[in-house]
């Protein structure tokens, strides 16, 4: 009981509050720095591996080399464009339409200006609904598409995912943007 009373008397010291809070924050920050140093290379590796796999999936090249191309067009959803040797372009798009706001799609565009395949690089779409956009059977219908791509509900040819029309629209928009971006580069 006497301890508690003593503690209460000590507490009003403002310097003590500052010192304790600063010390705790400092130690936490140092710990986080250490963990970040350990995990950062691995996280970078994961992202690079994923991007490389996505590029290979949508537009395979023999040597696996994709040269980044500067994209100067107006479409702000186009994040990166890579030239895949003579095979065409690979475009990474973050569409304006998505259910969660974190959709990112890799689109392969052949030399003839048609879509060669798509791959979802990043998604926060609803598990079990929008996340089905990652399924190969669904993605297959984008192969060979050209011009403006849209879901059947909007007058296009793509069958939207069950219960995930918004995600499907986002992917369609991505493909349309990617095709336009690749066409502008020639």
């Amino acid at each position, binding site marked *: 009981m006497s301890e508690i009373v003593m503690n209460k008397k000590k507490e009003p010291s403002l310097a003590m*509050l500052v010192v*304790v809070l600063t010390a705790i924050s400092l130690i*936490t920050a140092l*710990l*986080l720095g250490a963990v970040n140093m350990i995990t950062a290379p691995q996280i970078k590796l*994961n992202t690079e591996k994923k991007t490389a796999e996505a590029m290979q999936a949508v537009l395979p090249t023999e040597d696996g080399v994709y040269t980044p191309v500067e994209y100067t067009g107006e479409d702000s959803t186009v994040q990166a464009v890579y030239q895949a040797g003579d095979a065409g372009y690979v475009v990474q798009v973050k569409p304006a339409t998505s259910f969660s706001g974190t959709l990112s799609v890799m689109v392969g565009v052949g030399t003839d200006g048609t879509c060669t395949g798509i791959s979802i690089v990043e998604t926060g779409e609803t*598990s*079990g609904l929008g*996340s089905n956009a990652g399924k190969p059977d669904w993605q297959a219908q984008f192969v060979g598409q050209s011009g403006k791509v849209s879901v059947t509900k909007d007058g296009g040819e793509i069958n939207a995912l069950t219960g995930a029309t918004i995600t499907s629209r986002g992917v369609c928009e991505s493909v349309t943007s990617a095709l336009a971006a690749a066409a502008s580069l020639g």
Partner: protein
Amino acid sequence: MNVKKQFLDGMIYQNPVTVQLLGMCSTMAITTTLFNGIGMGISVLVILTCANIVISLLRKIIPSKVRIACYIVVIAGFVTIVDLLLKAYLPSLSESLGLFIPLIVVNCIILGRAESFASKNGVAASALDGIFQGLGYTVILVIMCVIREFLGNGTFGGGILNGGDGIRLIPEGIPALGMILPVGGFLTLAVVIAAMQYFLNKPKKGSDKKEEVAK
């Protein structure tokens, strides 16, 4: 220190979700596949246990005026560590839980246990409290995942079994999609809480009535 009581409290009598009604946001948001539920449950368990241990160790140093700020710094630190580790070594889980890992910082189970238990009890008891409360949370998540995945998607063990697709129990097209949408989360959680409260209050009511009669 009463291990058995702490275990029963965490799992049943003081279950974080169904009795204390804490951490309901993540409970409703991520319980769509078994993989998500187990992953989230274990993440919370680890963070809760670590935060409880540290806060219990520091309980005599932390001035009560800035205690909440101190707790949050400690919790946020552990959450970020777990987030980074998941991103590095379990990218698929990190992806499917997405924003909900960083949001554990504001999950009231952890702050609630820090305030109501770790700041008043010894290190060992606080560690046990973290483990048992975390287990209680995980069990409820798993129950909700199994119900919602079965009714909403017609599968069991999504994300883990059968190459990630889960074992199909109901043919495609029949399951009620709404159950894996947010509305299904509310419905399932309500049913789980109601069931839990029913069983918890059953014997108590009897004894209450007897007392009343005695009075």
